[in-house]
């Protein structure tokens, strides 16, 4: 019955409690709860249908997985989530207190020395400096490519970090790589832990990533990611690339 959002079972009539709570008191209690949850103020307005996008959907799947794990009565067989998690990812989820996702923005990095690869940039400024980085990964979707003559052909997807040298030039620093066949469809994850740790400690060094694809048989021959179906930019909402960060909360609780 209450519109305050707070329901207590203390033997008193709920409506009587509502009458005694003024608007200011309700607001104060809301702020207390927000503060307790580490949310001192609400974020900006959120766009419509945000759950269609890949990053929120990924985290919602992890949330449901966690709920299943917490609720021992509901066995995992009941899970409606279709999220594939590797053993390493499962460990990272177990170890972390905070999991954040970041959608890519492509328009941030100026002229970069590249030919056919794609640039990706993630705004990691919201990551609290005090938190420990357990891990981070880039998740990109690979669909069917244009040239599907040989589905068994193997390609290497490499991710580089853009760095600025002492001379002011932009260079590529190898971060991680993985091999996929041309016929593979699904999500690919690449380890970005080292990148994120740098970006959190030194936000100004975040110049983004460079994604490069080449056939295993011809290392010097770079192809466009979209040629083998790798989705980078101008993607459907549910196939947008994103970065996941696994963080462990520091034990310095602020006095209130």
């Amino acid at each position, binding site marked *: 019955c*209450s*519109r*305050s*959002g*707070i*329901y*207590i*079972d*203390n*033997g008193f009539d709920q409506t009587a409690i509502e009458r005694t709570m003024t608007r200011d008191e309700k607001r104060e209690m*809301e702020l207390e*709860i927000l503060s307790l*949850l*580490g*949310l001192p103020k*609400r*974020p*900006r*307005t*959120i*766009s419509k249908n*945000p*759950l269609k996008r890949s*990053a*929120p959907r990924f*985290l*919602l799947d*992890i*949330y449901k997985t*966690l*709920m299943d794990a*917490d609720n021992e009565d509901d066995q995992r067989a009941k899970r409606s989530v279709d999220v594939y998690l590797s053993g390493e990812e499962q460990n990272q989820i177990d170890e*972390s*207190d*905070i*999991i*954040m*996702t*970041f*959608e890519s*923005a492509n328009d941030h990095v100026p002229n970069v020395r590249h030919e056919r690869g794609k640039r990706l940039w993630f*705004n990691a400024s*919201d990551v609290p400096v005090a938190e420990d980085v357990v891990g981070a990964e880039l998740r990109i979707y690979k669909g069917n490519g244009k040239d599907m003559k040989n589905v068994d052909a193997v390609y290497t997807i490499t991710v580089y970090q853009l760095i600025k040298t002492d001379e002011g030039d932009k260079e590529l620093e190898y971060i991680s790589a993985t091999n996929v066949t041309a016929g593979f469809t699904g999500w690919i994850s690449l380890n970005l832990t080292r990148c994120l740790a740098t970006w959190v400690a030194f936000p100004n060094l975040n110049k983004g990533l460079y994604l490069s694809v080449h056939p295993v048989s011809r290392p010097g021959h770079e192809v466009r990611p979209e040629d083998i179906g790798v989705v980078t930019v101008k993607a459907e909402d549910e196939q947008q690339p994103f970065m996941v960060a696994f963080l462990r909360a520091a034990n310095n609780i602020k006095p209130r």
Partner: protein
Amino acid sequence: VTRETRTKKDTFNSVMTGYSKVKNERQDLRRSCRIETLYINFKDLSWTDWIIAPDGYPAFYCAGECNFPLNAHMNATNHAIVQTLVHLMNPLRFPKPCCAPTRLNPISVLYYLDDHNVILKKYKKMVVKSCGCH
């Protein structure tokens, strides 16, 4: 006559005492240490546009007194008995055992940081699963 009156009075007192006893027992039962409901509904607070999950926070809380005998209460620790005895010896100086959570579960909250970034935060020991005397 005097004797009869006294008997009637005693009977009346006895009945009243019994009534009070039942009433007190009910009060004690109601006031004894137990888990109580506290639920914060995010929808009613208009938070669901930025908190994706869960729908609310089922916090619960522990309330009530830990009176002797402690075995009437849920999950009393052995030391709560010692604390009760100390309290009985000097009630003004030493407090009773406390009614407090004996088991706490975590809660996870999934919310938007802004239009692009989403965060899943785990909060340890946030939901009371059981209460007891400590």
